[in-house]
């Protein structure tokens, strides 16, 4: 299979990766960046009217993205009686930290955080490792039946997990794994998506470099670590980010498996702040949303740099 994938398709690697991460993580950011490019280019040719239009467009998009976030933040500091009023209050007055203390007293918030961290890190690591090594085998190693294995993996991608949930539940419950970490983590650790994504990335790497490495005597593992992985860094980081965010927000399966705060993650825990028959006090819900968002935001800012570093490294190689 690798013989028919030729070089030449390497050019857009950086571009597509950037778009892929941008597309799933922060659509606003990508658009803004593109707009910034347009403004830059056009200001040379078209005069100030276009520049102004560009800035107005940018401001609009910032508003669309930022206002709901701002509203969540402000609401989390409001007193209960100030949440539903007309005209709307755009600033908490008086500001109160009560929602945050209520959040931690009404539900065992830190238990949920602990569970979320354990479940997210375990499933993410499992997914990333499995994704990378299976994709590596399916793209760069030659063995009989490789295409069939790949097709089976892709078929697994096509079955939505809502369908397999009941039978997975039956199996895991029989093992006595309900309300345990392994019961939540292991069924989530399968990775058709990662295999698919990383395989395509590996196939797009310049064939000469791989061949050169093989000629120089690199074994399969060395090839993976020293040659393939460094060139695939942006895709890998993007994949890791998507995985972590997905796992952090995973709801259906942990909800079915967990019985109480000993294993339930944050998305399940936060629902108990909402009143399911009557009026919800939104203050603590918003406070919980903010706190649940923070770790992902930090992670994103950290990994974003890595992603850009990887982009330039990849560009030099080809």
């Amino acid at each position, binding site marked *: *299979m690798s013989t*028919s*994938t030729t070089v030449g398709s390497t050019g857009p690697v950086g571009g597509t990766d950037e778009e892929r991460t941008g597309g799933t993580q922060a659509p606003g950011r990508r658009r803004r960046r593109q707009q910034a490019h347009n403004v830059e280019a056009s200001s040379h040719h078209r005069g100030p009217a276009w520049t102004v239009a560009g800035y107005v467009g940018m401001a609009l998009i910032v508003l669309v993205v930022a206002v709901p976030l701002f509203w969540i933040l402000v609401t989390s500091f409001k007193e*209960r*009686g100030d*949440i*539903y*009023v*007309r005209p709307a209050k755009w600033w908490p007055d008086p500001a109160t930290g009560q929602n945050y203390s209520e959040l931690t007293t009404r539900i065992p918030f830190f238990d949920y955080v602990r569970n979320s961290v354990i479940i997210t890190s375990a499933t993410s690591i499992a997914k990333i490792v499995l994704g990378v090594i299976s994709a590596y085998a399916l793209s760069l190693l030659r063995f009989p039946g490789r*295409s*069939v294995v790949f*097709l*089976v993996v*892709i*078929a*697994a991608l*096509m*079955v939505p997990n809502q*369908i*397999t*949930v*009941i*039978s*997975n*539940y*039956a*199996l*895991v*419950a*029989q093992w006595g794994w*309900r309300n345990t970490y392994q019961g939540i983590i292991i069924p989530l650790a399968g990775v058709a998506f990662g295999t698919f994504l990383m395989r395509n990335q590996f196939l797009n790497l310049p064939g000469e470099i791989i061949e050169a490495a093989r000629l120089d005597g690199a074994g399969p593992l060395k090839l993976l670590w020293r040659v393939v992985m460094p060139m695939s860094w942006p895709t890998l980081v993007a994949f890791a980010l998507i995985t972590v965010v997905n796992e952090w927000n995973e709801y259906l399966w942990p*909800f*079915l498996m*967990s*019985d*109480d*705060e000993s294993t*339930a993650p944050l998305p*399940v825990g936060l*629902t*108990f702040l*909402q*009143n*399911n*028959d*009557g*009026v*919800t*006090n939104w203050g603590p819900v918003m406070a919980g949303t903010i706190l649940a968002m923070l770790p992902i935001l930090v992670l994103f800012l950290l990994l974003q740099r890595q992603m850009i570093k990887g982009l330039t490294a990849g560009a030099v190689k080809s």
Partner: protein
Amino acid sequence: MNEFSRRGFLGLAGAAGIAGLSACAGTGTSATSGNGGGSSNTIEFWSNHPGNSKPVEQEIIKAFEAANSGLKVKLVDAGKNYEEVAQKFNASLAGGQLPDVVVVSDVTWFNFALNKQLTPLDDLLSSAKVQTSDYVDALFNDYKLKDKHYALPFARSTPLFYYNKDLWKAAGLEDRGPKDWDEFLTWAPKLKAAAGSDKIVMELPDGSNYLDWVFQNMVWGYGGAYSKEWTPTFSDPGTVKAGTYLQNLAKQGFLKLSKDPAPDFTAGIVACSMMSTGSLGGVAKDAKFPVGTAFLPGEGNCPTGGAGVGIPASISDERKKNALKFMEFLTNAKNTVTFTQATGYMPVRKSAVDLPEEKAFLDKNPNAKTAIEQLPKTRSQDNARVLLPGGGARIGKGLDQVVAGQDVATVFKSLDAESQQVFDSQIKSKLGA
């Protein structure tokens, strides 16, 4: 080799997918044949803690464990709403480890009962000598299928008529709810004039948020019904008249539908609404104006709602007996009072109202009193909404269309046809004779 034809690829992928599916689908069936696992002296109680009631549930559980040494109750977070509890219960039915007691709503219990997944309680109740006549009749009989009861009422609510007393005064209206919907129609223009153009006379939940629940009151008020037993009666003149009334309210600008009327009502921009008694505590706490409550317009036209507790069918008799013991305790006069005072639900026992702590509570909370006084005037809901699969959603969609201005008779006629078809295809054969 990697140049598969598209068709070949899809075919192979499909085949692999089907193989994968059928491989998983078989698992777990063996577990259901046993007694569903679990130990007989730990009672697993699956609840969504209706009305943020987890602390109260824990309090009642503690009292139960103190009164019954040797029995333990494990409270399980089974979801954020009734549908999620049903989903989790469904999953456990496929694969063992069943709960002992599970919360089922007015809509979800029936399907489980029909498929023999819930235990009929009558024999258990009589051998445990439970006074079933003390349960509020309409609430207890909500769980009746072919003369057997499949659940005990637990977190039960009814709609109430909420009004903004300030706006009522501004419109020069008496401090009470309307006698019937015709009277309300004479009030609406006054309210509109007094409230101003930026306010809304009446806001109701939309069709995907239980408009079909509160609308039953209008239907019954005009002599119609969604169904008589299993025969859909949307085309009944009374039902159509109620639909036309609803449409007129919207046409004249008196009615707005929203996902949840409570925020607008508490913000003071809505003059009145019909909402669950469960909202009472929250609305009273949030609103910056005096909140009035009244019976729903009409006599004996108030639908019931909310949830009960049931026992899975395939657990051992020993477990069933303990489960019933807990359910009886959970819903006895004293505990139903504790539970409802903390949440805003209705006491499910007739004798509850005579307890001194409930009397004191009602004296202090006149709005809660309205709800309880309305309780004897409640009526079990029509089968077409609560018992036909997808009934609530189907009727809600129809009502949305009516409010949007589509012809009432046409919409209701197709509701008749659809309901009949669902009954014929999904219920009729299982009902047997």
